[in-house]
């Protein structure tokens, strides 16, 4: 069954690049990939329901990715929603920290369709 995706990034360009790369990866995802510009908007999208996997940037104005992960993990009804962080930041302490907070995966930019496929396949 096709999975429903939510892409969270403050840059419309990067949301488009991520969406395009996910499609190129050939994964079974819904045609309608949802988008949000920051953590607050992403929480609203989540309330609307039907999101299986979130691809989320870290550095965003408003609610950033780190706070967003914590908020989602505070809600037991969203326990099955997978969160993959996408960022240019590659410091181990940051990656370990955000995974400890509840992120399921971490993709460092630059990414390719193969990178995305490898990270998302376990959750498909």
């Amino acid at each position: 069954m096709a999975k429903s995706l939510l892409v969270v990034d403050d840059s419309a360009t990067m949301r488009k690049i991520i969406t395009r790369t996910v499609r190129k990866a050939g994964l079974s995802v819904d045609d309608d990939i949802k988008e949000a510009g920051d953590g607050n908007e992403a929480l609203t999208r989540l309330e609307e329901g039907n999101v299986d996997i979130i691809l989320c940037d870290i550095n965003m104005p408003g609610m950033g990715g780190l706070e967003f992960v914590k908020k989602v993990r505070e809600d037991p009804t969203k326990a099955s929603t997978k969160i993959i962080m996408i960022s240019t930041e590659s410091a181990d302490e940051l990656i370990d920290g955000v995974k400890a907070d509840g992120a399921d995966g971490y993709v460092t930019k630059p990414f390719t369709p193969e990178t995305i496929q490898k990270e998302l396949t376990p959750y498909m």
Partner: protein
Amino acid sequence: MPDTTEEIQSKVLDLTVEAFSTFAEDIETMFDTEVTAQQSDITEGTPDDLKDAYKKLAAVCSVTAEGAVNGEFHIIFDKDGVFTLPGTFVMQPEQVILQNRKSGKQEEAQEIGDALAEVGNLLVGAWDRIFREELEGHKHFVQSGTFIGNVWANTEESLRIKPDEELSILSFEMTVAPLPPFNCSVIYPKSVFEPVAEAPSEEAPPEAEAPAEETPAEETPAEETPAEEAPAEEAVPQAEVSAEEPKEAQDKGPVTEAISKMAESPAYLPGDFSDVSGILSGLKAKDVMRKQVSWATAEATVEDLVAKMQQDDTGYIMIGDGEKLQGIVSKSDVRGAMSPYLQSMFAKWRSSMDVATLQIKSKWVMSRPVRTVTPEASLQVIVQTMTEHGGRCTPVVDTAGKVVGTITVFDVFYALLNCSTASQSAGRAVEAPPLA
């Protein structure tokens, strides 16, 4: 860890060359296109020394460093770079990037400002990896601003450095194939190389990234228009330039030419059409136009346009908000924008770049300005409009500026055919076709 200013400077300049190559490789990886970065110069000087290379329109990505390198430094891109890198990120067609490099202004650059911020983001990521691996004491880089405009109107605002500040300048020639090269330079104020006292060691928690999240990417407002903006009549908008380019939707072509000849001389028509002049002047746009008009926004992709054309069974889509017309896209425009490798017979040679052509935006392929006619315009005027200005589809616009229909050359033919058939049937006995 390097101890002196000279040691830090030397190490940082070496790593900068490596970081720039990594940045080029990262773009290559993500966008499946050949990218190179070659160091072209290394100098010491003041902001004035950059004036020749970075005239008027340029972009500056500012980066704040913490650790062994401490303070803010900048990467400046020339006008060609302003349009090439962000254009590549948003998959603009090669000809659009080239056109922007030639005649693009601040307005066009601002349109892709979001992509420029992403260029800076990727650049910071690449540099951070290299410096973390190879410079002891490096903590991190944070993208601290993006500027697009005339850098020289106020360098303290654009480059955030004083006019007499001493700088180390490392210049590069970058190429994103198949486009021509462009120039960029890394500008280090010498103060960033000064050794800083070691801060008490503490592990940076994830929250330490918060300042970066609060730093707006668009530090500089759009009002930073270059002081030497060309006069209005000299500033050739992209629309007018593209209107001069040979595009199928604007070409006269044999079909429009044939209509033109009919308009000039009814004798050109095969057979006896003695009242063609009457038909051309008697029929009006409102009599022959198609009332069903297909619309798409300027942001719609080629993929969206293909779906819309199939759904509405039309060869022309009006670009705009449903009333006000911005441009027009024909089936041929769409076909020209799409990679031929998207055809099923070429599937096994198809690359991701071919698929990416489906994401080209309608505003990049549409024809503009669009010549329109009023509902009361005669067929003669419509034919003249098509002939003189090119195009095989003419929108019909009412006095309020609303598009109420469209007329194609085939609609004109159909109207002529209908009228001549009616006239023949009314005036003569219908004859049986000759026996073979």
